[in-house]
């Protein structure tokens, strides 16, 4: 069965998503954008769709059809159709059976034929992205759509070449995107303030079925109205300052429109924004520039009338639903305008609770449609069986550090392995201490178990290679094994239910890690500096013993003194910088010894003038002579 495309067929913009690897993902269109304007231009019987249609709307106003969703499946004499007909430059007339149709160049087109062009483009772009034919779709419609409007939407899908598996309500799709279908007997309010329309829906979920209790809204209220308020303000400000009216200058108006939209977006995340348009116009006195600051408070004042317009429909919808505000369990936001802090505040004040956030409000409906498609195709059910590790799993390493092997939120079943080594010369056993948690230090994490791998052949520190492997099966059972690569000796431990923590326990452990992040980092840095210092002392001792009498006695004594001092620091000091600087000092002295050894060797062999090769030179320069990805294990004496 091919993939099912989830489509949010919007009044202003449309979006599409698909289930991929168990997750809903927005598909970009051929132009590389995540949403496609629901605009179609018909010229000599040929169609242009999306952003290209929008770009030519000025020169083909009568042939460029937008907001056709508003007349979909409606009769021409419908009040809404009459309202839209007054707003748009193209012709809307009465067609077959009195239904509203669009007339272009003397030819009639049904709204479903026009919408089908948008859907056809989405289909083609999705197929180009997926590299396979897409035949099935789930398409969303507003909750207030009646049977005729739903059938018309389905018909549009058919004309575009889709088998429409299901038509679902936009607020239902948004709720699905937040996983609210898993709740039972809850009441949900969906506040949708998009590019051109405002909708509020009250839903009830019981046994996985959503029931629409009430809807309301305003078909002529959206993001563009907010931009317009900013533009009007900018024109007034400029007029006050310069005495020039920009509203007659089309090019200036275009620049104001771009700047207003940018300012609106910026004010969602900042308290104030600078609107700066140099050379916006010119008069006898020379060029004029627009340079004003718009702060959030002023912006909210400018758009307060628009924001207030959303309050009454919300109250009516709640009243119609027969549910009291306090009974609403979940609030979902849809549409780009719901990023505005004031909108979130209004919604919070009305319902007395935080709305759901996290899914891009422009994309949440398409995401939900894709999830519905996934449920129909069986994708979602299968994927839900896969669990994740709620917390990081790792082992304790030198100095009590917790070294992660499997990071939190990794989907199981999974496995990971890493090679560790010994911390002391002739160490013949290592203790593997299995830990769970997000903290940097082993002692702060939860201990899941320990075991000892012994029988490691005696060797200098850092030489033995012990491979530690973590494997979690689909049931959350963790198997940890440690194997000495030289002797082949192996030990293992099985930990049941490593994922079986309660939500509260997991939350607490994650929060604790966040709270202690800074101090944990500090502790870890100190221990790492001590580990490097200790390594340096061993490396220095080895270099001295290799060099034998090739080192001057005075130099040798100085280095030996440094080694003793550095070891003392490792034991007593808590100062990372002090340990690091002493380590660097010793490292430099050892490098000098190394270099002089090469020089004397060159002098003796009188060989070619080539210097030391990079591989060899790297040895003494590196304070850590372990092999890459070999981490020293906890010492078991």
């Amino acid at each position, binding site marked *: 069965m091919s993939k099912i495309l989830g489509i949010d067929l919007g009044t202003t913009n449309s979006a599409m998503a698909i289930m*991929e690897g168990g997750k809903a993902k927005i598909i970009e269109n051929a132009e*590389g954008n995540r949403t496609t304007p629901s605009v179609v231009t018909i010229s000599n019987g040929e169609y242009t769709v999306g952003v290209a249609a929008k770009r030519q709307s000025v020169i083909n106003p009568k042939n460029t059809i937008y907001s056709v969703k508003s007349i979909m499946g409606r009769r021409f004499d419908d009040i809404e159709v009459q309202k839209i007909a007054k707003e748009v430059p193209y012709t809307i007339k009465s067609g077959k059976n009195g239904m509203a149709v669009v007339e272009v160049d003397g030819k009639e087109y049904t709204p479903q034929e026009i919408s089908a062009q948008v859907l056809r483009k989405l289909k083609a772009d999705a197929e180009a992205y997926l590299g396979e034919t897409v035949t099935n779709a789930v398409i969303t419609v507003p909750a207030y759509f009646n049977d005729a409007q739903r059938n018309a939407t389905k018909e549009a899908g058919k004309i575009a070449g889709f088998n429409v598996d299901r038509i679902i309500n936009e607020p239902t799709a948004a709720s699905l995107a937040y996983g609210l279908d898993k709740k039972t007997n809850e009441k949900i309010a969906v506040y949708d303030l998009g590019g051109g329309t405002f909708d509020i829906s009250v839903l009830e979920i019981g046994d996985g079925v959503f029931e629409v209790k009430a809807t309301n809204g305003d078909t002529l209220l959206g993001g563009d109205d907010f931009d317009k308020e900013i533009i009007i303000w900018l024109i007034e400000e400029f007029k006050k300052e310069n005495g020039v009216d920009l509203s007659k200058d089309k090019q200036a108006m275009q620049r104001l429109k771009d700047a207003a939209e940018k300012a609106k977006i910026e004010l969602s995340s900042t308290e104030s924004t600078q609107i700066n348009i*140099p050379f916006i116009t010119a008069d006898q006195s020379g060029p004029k520039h627009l340079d004003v600051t718009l702060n959030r408070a002023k912006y909210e004042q400018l758009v307060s009338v628009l924001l207030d317009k959303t309050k009454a429909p919300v109250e009516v919808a709640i009243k119609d639903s027969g549910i009291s505000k306090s009974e609403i369990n979940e609030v979902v936001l849809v549409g780009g305008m719901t990023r505005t802090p004031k909108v979130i505040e209004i919604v919070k004040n009305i319902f007395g609770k935080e709305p759901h956030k996290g899914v891009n409000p422009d994309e949440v409906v398409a995401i939900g449609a894709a999830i519905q498609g996934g449920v129909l195709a069986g994708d979602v059910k299968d994927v839900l069986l896969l669990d994740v590790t709620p917390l990081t799993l790792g082992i304790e390493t030198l100095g009590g550090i917790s070294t992660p092997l499997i990071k939190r939120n990794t989907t199981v079943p999974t496995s990971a392995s890493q090679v560790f080594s010994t911390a002391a010369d002739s160490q013949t056993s290592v203790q593997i201490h299995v830990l769970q948690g997000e903290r940097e230090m082993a002692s702060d994490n939860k201990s899941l178990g320990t075991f000892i791998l012994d029988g490691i052949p005696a060797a200098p520190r850092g030489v033995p290679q012990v491979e530690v492997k973590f494997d979690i099966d689909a049931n959350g059972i963790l198997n940890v094994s440690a194997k000495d690569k030289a002797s082949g000796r192996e030990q293992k431990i099985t930990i049941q239910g490593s994922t079986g923590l309660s939500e509260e326990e997991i939350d607490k452990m994650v929060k604790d890690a966040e709270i202690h992040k800074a101090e944990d980092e500090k502790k870890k840095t100190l221990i790492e500096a001590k580990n490097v210092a200790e390594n340096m002392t061993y490396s220095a001792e080895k270099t001295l013993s290799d060099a034998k009498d090739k080192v001057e006695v005075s130099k040798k004594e100085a280095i030996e003194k440094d080694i003793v001092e550095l070891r003392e620091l490792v034991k007593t000091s808590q100062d990372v910088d002090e340990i690091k600087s002493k380590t660097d000092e010793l490292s430099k002295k050892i490098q000098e010894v190394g270099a002089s050894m090469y020089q004397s060797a060159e002098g003796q062999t009188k060989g070619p003038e080539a210097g030391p090769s990079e591989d060899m030179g790297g040895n003494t320069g590196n304070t850590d002579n372990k092999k890459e990805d070999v981490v020293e294990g906890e010492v078991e004496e």
Partner: protein
Amino acid sequence: MPKIKETKHECENCKVAETKAFEMENLYKRALADYINLSKRNEEDKFKIISFANEILITKMLGVLDDLEESQKHSKSDGIDMVISKFKKILNDAGVSEVNPENGIFDPISHEALDLIDGEKDKIITVNRKGYLLFGKVIRPALVSVGKGN
């Protein structure tokens, strides 16, 4: 005869197990195919991300280039000329090319119509703001006035 019953019972179990195994194999293959396809697309996406990582930044910088060019029209300074050509060279090296379609035919893929003015039909009479492509992709359409054909 209990023995026969037993065999029959076992066979039924076999059938259930077989069906289940078949289902599981199917699911496994689907998951694997999903994963392989996802990896392929990830590779493609990575290439796109690398190529277009600078798109947002570049698009913002284009506004500054517009302002510089506009300022040059008024001040005619050699210094600003040099700054503009240096700026353009950097953009060019990053894969940006200019769309300046004066006297060309209107094409909604790379042009955006600002208004209709006197002049030959569908011909671009004035370029109000230049457009730009990044590796051939339109990152900003040229804003143009188009002839209405009178």
